[in-house]
């Protein structure tokens, strides 16, 4: 762990060092590519202005995650319980991911307005797919010998789900959730680009129009911090909940 953190830190340091040196060496103007030191200073010193926007985006992402969980978990269970239903629903699931989020963002803004609802739904649309698919695969991967054992003990489907399938699928669920939370900000930010009055996506569009590229990068930095924090949080929950794997 320490070793990997050291390598990550070294890699980031090298990339930022090369970037900073190139900008200084070639005199690249800030409105084309600002130096990392400039971006960090904007991200830190303009935090009072950035943080309220970040809070809005974070709220959209978190509600999006909750919403996607509320849809994905029961959906995966139902699809597992009724394979015929899985065959019927699968094409719609794939289609929901095949359509670019950019294409549906304007529609969601028209239908749900400029508030957070359209962004929450955008985030949820992106997140629910990896969670559903991973969880379903987790249920399916349950060892047949355990299934037979439960059958012989006379357990019904829902009891087996609670005591066997669900704990069995938890590692898959967390794998899907990790993918989901990593891309969750994409949905929210695209929604904010299309139509919003606040949020980091909105701020990026505003800053871009004024050629404040350092502010755009600062917003990206805050988005990265947000995504990384969610990923770390999910990893922490995974370690706490799946104790038997440790």
């Amino acid at each position: 762990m320490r070793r990997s953190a050291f390598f990550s830190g070294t890699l980031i340091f090298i990339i930022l060092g090369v970037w900073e040196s190139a900008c200084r060496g070639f005199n690249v103007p800030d409105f084309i590519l600002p130096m990392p030191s400039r971006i960090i200073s904007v991200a830190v010193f303009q935090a009072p202005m950035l943080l309220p926007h970040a809070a809005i985006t974070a709220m959209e992402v978190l509600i999006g995650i909750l919403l996607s969980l509320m849809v994905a978990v029961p959906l995966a269970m139902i699809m597992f319980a009724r394979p015929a239903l899985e065959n019927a629903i699968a094409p719609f699931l794939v289609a929901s991911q095949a359509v670019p989020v950019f294409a549906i963002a304007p529609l969601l803004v028209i239908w749900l307005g400029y508030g957070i609802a359209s962004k929450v739904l955008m985030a949820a649309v992106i997140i629910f797919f990896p969670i559903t698919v991973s969880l379903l695969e987790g249920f399916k991967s349950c060892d047949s010998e355990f299934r037979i054992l439960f059958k012989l003990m006379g357990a019904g489907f829902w009891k087996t789900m609670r005591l066997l399938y669900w704990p069995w699928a938890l590692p898959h669920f967390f794998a899907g959730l990790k993918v989901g939370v990593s891309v969750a900000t994409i949905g929210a930010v695209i929604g904010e680009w299309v139509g919003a009055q606040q949020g980091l996506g909105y701020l990026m569009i505003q800053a871009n129009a004024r050629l404040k590229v350092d502010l755009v990068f600062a917003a990206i930095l805050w988005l990265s911090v947000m995504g990384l924090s969610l990923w770390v949080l999910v990893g922490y929950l995974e370690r706490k909940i799946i104790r038997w794997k440790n």
Partner: protein
Amino acid sequence: MLSVSNLSKRFGDLPIFENFNLELPAGGFTVLIGPSGCGKSTLFDVLTGAATRDGGKVSWCGEAVEYLKDTSAYMQQKDLLLPWFSLMDNALLPAKIGGEDIPEAGKKAQSLFRQLGLEGFESYLPGQISGGMRQRCALVRTLMFERQLVLLDEPLSALDAITRRSLQALLLMLQVEFEKSILMITHDIEEALRLADEVLVLSGRPMRVLDQFSLQGPKLRRLDDPQLIRIKEYVLNLLQEELVK
């Protein structure tokens, strides 16, 4: 008590067993021994209803039954303990699934933990204990079923010789103290001779009974008995011939 007559099972065109017959008296310990892949485990699957049968009759206490799911406890080769539950929760699984009174079942499980030498490990996860202890916990879970008939599918095959020896005594305890009727599959002829009242030597596919022995004398039997040595040699020769076929 258990009577199996003319039982048949096929996988497509492949006959696993045809017209297979078996009798297990109440309180008896019958061991099935045969070459790998001959259909022993499939027989248990058919008996418990985990697989369908193609013909034949199964009777329990004189009454014809479809399968033995509700009258037998089945312990498989793997311990099949759920890694996310403590040993106690694993032992209580039949009670939880059956909707039984958990505190009452807990008392029974606690007593079994004591008898099987697992006291003090109730809160451990299966991944934290040895293979022998895991198998003992699986045995506790099997006993929690409160079923008269116990089907054991190579329950000790994955264990080292010393652990195996100590668990053989526990299997005997199942028969003597808990008054269970036991039908066990094993590959180990010595294990069969130590434990069984009746040994059925099985052929390769399609599985049939090649020979059958009733064994006398106190258990666990010592294997230096000349008669047992003769039986062991004979059975090994029979199985070797089957392997050549």
